[in-house]
């Protein structure tokens, strides 16, 4: 009898251990939905020019005429892809969809098992792909890129490629971007007018002036999220400042894990110091370390915050909460006349190496970029540049909507597009940026220490691979 508690205690402990570690078990706790994954892979966003043309008729891979049930695995909260599947079935009635959806964190954790399982998905949302590609779990899409002419599309796909050494940026195509997200600064037009902003700032210094005016005027200068559950939103302004103070290539090299790449560079230190200065001046909410992503978006929508750093995936939400009152500009460069930079990249989807309907999946990818209705749906629900071939139709957007502004912003970034520093390794966001930036907010970390700590974590994780 007196043994029972020991057994009981061991049992509870082991159940925990088994839940945590059993490779076939799903994570026990539904994770918070952090749609902060921003760009997963980046490509200079350049929307189609003029002259709508007919979508190329697929001569090669297609969905055939026999009934096909596509097995697909999407990320919860992205309506655009679901609407696209519905439209596709209208146009190709032999194709129906078996859609499974998961929150971002669960999706990330489940992806390797789903890809390796005995019901491999024909299409899967892939926030990151390098480790899966290395393990041979993803289909090489090069032949489809050649057949459909994806390589000639103005928005290049190099960031969805990986070379033989496992370095992203060139080589084999493992994923397809369905639209091209863009990040930058959203602002509340009424509050901006209140602080005398007549046009978007042209330099970091001008932006600083506006922030100081907002603070002096008793307004919340910047609304941002920062809880560990959502992932620290200050990574957005930090990376924007990095790109303002230095070139974007070394930042991408670091994200793509090129040998010898470091985030602890002088220009990044300047950026981190600038961010620390913003924190110390009280430009961010005092409770930022406890604010969830959705709460930050809601509070900004209610008028708390003149500016917020975010991406165009939030367009629909902002347009709904503050119709006609929300604007967007790209983070300005340090020097007047410099080229603006942004985290920008395709929302990537891949095909399992052993997928049964790979041809149909590739046909669907191509259809999204080329079909007029699909492009319209993509912009309406996704809020981002739909990519596709040069000369594809330009979807119409409601005048005055923030989507019109973000779509116009893409071409200005051009080759200055970056992937997101939170995507460098699978847990650099959770184990590096988030805790270290939270410490900076709490006055327990400085700019130099932040970069050193994140670089050390980066090297530790790479050594584990």
């Amino acid at each position, binding site marked *: 009898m*007196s043994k029972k*508690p*020991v057994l*009981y*205690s061991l*049992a*509870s*402990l*082991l159940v*925990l*251990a*088994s839940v*945590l*570690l*059993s*490779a076939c078990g799903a*994570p026990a*706790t*539904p994770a*918070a939905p952090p749609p902060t994954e921003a760009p997963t892979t980046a490509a200079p966003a350049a929307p189609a020019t003029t002259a709508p043309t007919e979508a190329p008729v697929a001569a090669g891979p297609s969905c055939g005429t026999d009934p096909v049930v596509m097995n697909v695995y999407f990320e919860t909260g992205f309506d655009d892809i679901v609407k696209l599947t519905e439209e596709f079935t209208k146009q190709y009635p032999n194709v129906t969809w078996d859609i499974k959806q998961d929150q971002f*964190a669960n999706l*990330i*954790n489940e992806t*390797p*098992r789903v*890809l*390796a399982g005995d019901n491999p998905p024909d299409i899967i949302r892939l926030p990151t792909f390098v*480790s899966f590609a290395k*393990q041979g*779990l993803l289909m090489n899409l090069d032949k489809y890129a050649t057949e459909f002419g994806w390589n000639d599309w103005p928005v290049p796909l190099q960031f969805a490629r990986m070379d033989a050494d496992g370095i992203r940026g060139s080589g084999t195509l493992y994923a397809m971007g369905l639209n091209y997200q863009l990040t930058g600064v959203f602002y509340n037009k009424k509050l901006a007018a209140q602080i005398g902003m007549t046009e978007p700032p042209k330099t970091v210094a001008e932006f600083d002036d506006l922030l100081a005016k907002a603070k002096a005027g008793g307004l919340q200068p910047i609304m941002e999220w*920062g*809880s*560990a*559950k959502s992932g620290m939103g200050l990574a957005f302004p930090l990376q924007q400042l990095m790109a303002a103070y230095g070139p974007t290539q070394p930042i991408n090299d670091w994200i793509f894990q090129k040998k010898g790449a470091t985030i602890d560079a002088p220009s990044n230190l300047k950026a981190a110091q600038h961010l620390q200065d913003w924190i110390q001046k009280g430009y961010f*909410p*005092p*409770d*930022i*370390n*406890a*604010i*969830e992503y959705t*709460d930050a978006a809601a509070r900004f929508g209610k008028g708390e915050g003149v500016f917020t750093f975010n991406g165009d995936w939030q367009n629909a939400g902002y347009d709904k909460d503050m119709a006609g009152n929300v604007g967007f500009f790209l983070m300005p460069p340090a020097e007047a006349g410099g080229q603006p930079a942004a985290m920008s990249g395709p929302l990537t989807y891949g095909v399992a190496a052993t997928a049964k309907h790979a041809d149909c999946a590739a046909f669907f990818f191509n259809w999204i970029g080329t079909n007029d209705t699909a492009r319209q749906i993509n912009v309406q629900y996704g809020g981002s540049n739909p990519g596709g071939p040069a000369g594809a139709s330009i979807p119409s957007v409601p005048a005055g909507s923030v989507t019109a502004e973000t779509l116009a912003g893409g071409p200005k970034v051009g080759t200055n597009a970056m992937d997101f520093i939170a995507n460098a*390794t*699978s*847990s650099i966001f*959770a*184990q590096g940026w*988030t*805790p*270290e930036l*939270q*410490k900076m*907010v*709490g006055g*327990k970390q400085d700019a130099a220490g932040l970069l050193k700590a994140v670089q050390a*974590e980066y090297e*530790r*994780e790479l050594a*584990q691979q």
Partner: protein
Amino acid sequence: MVTLDNRPAASVASRRTSLNRGVRRETIVGWLFVVPALGMYAVFVLLPLLLTILYSFYRWNGVGPMAWVGLKNYVTVFQVPDLIGTIVNAFWLVVWFSFIPVGLGLVVASVIHRVATGRLGEIARTVLFLPQVIPLVAAGIIWGWLLALPGLINQILKAVGLAAFARAWLGDFDWALPAVGMIGIWVLLGFCTVLLLTGMTKVDPALYESARMDGAGWLQEFLAITVPLLRYEIGVCLTVTVIAALAAFDIVYVATAGGPGNSTAVPGIQIYMIAFTQRAVGLASALAVLLMILVVVVIIPIQRLSRESAE
């Protein structure tokens, strides 16, 4: 629950074989009753335990091939950022998840036992036990709202003139851990109270009566009768709640996910992150094995104390 009691077999050893056969049948039937539970225990507890120990000697991402690395994972574990910090946090949680619920539970149970035996006692017990029934994830989200800067708790503080104390409780480096601890108290107090109350009903009322005749007050009764006679139940409470603290995962994960800046990170969170986000299953297994050893080392003295006193 069926126990593997061999007393009948021993006592009938000298009897006739027909009886012996009956006993054997009884033993077999007994085993049959145990088999389903034993099977579940083996599949869901013993097997994962052995696999976890096995994984801890390999480098493995959960899907691809496994590579034997010997004890390397156990060396690397100590490079996990803030590992010592997470263990210190876990011991801090023992105060909140274990000492306070058990201490407070004793007081509350004793009050209910003494003054509220009827309907009021039932209501009090139900209300206190309710958090055990509410899904922890839902509760964690609601606590997140309550403890947020614009949340109810800060509004109350402001209303009573304590605006200076208002803060984002779960985002504050000094207050996040105590705030998580408060959620722990809310969850575990009812469990301890009900368990201790059940123990109290077993105590002979004559003991209390004679103590009262001798002029003992509530406090003396509590210290001289209630606490010593409930040592066994207290031991059970401590065991369960100390494990809840050291192996904490769910409450912390839904409340803060370890933030801000790892100030509420506990080993359970690190194991989850390393296994499922970083996909270093071997390393996470090594940390899990070390955590298990740590828990066993802490629990054994508690067990020994409560067993000795119970005997």
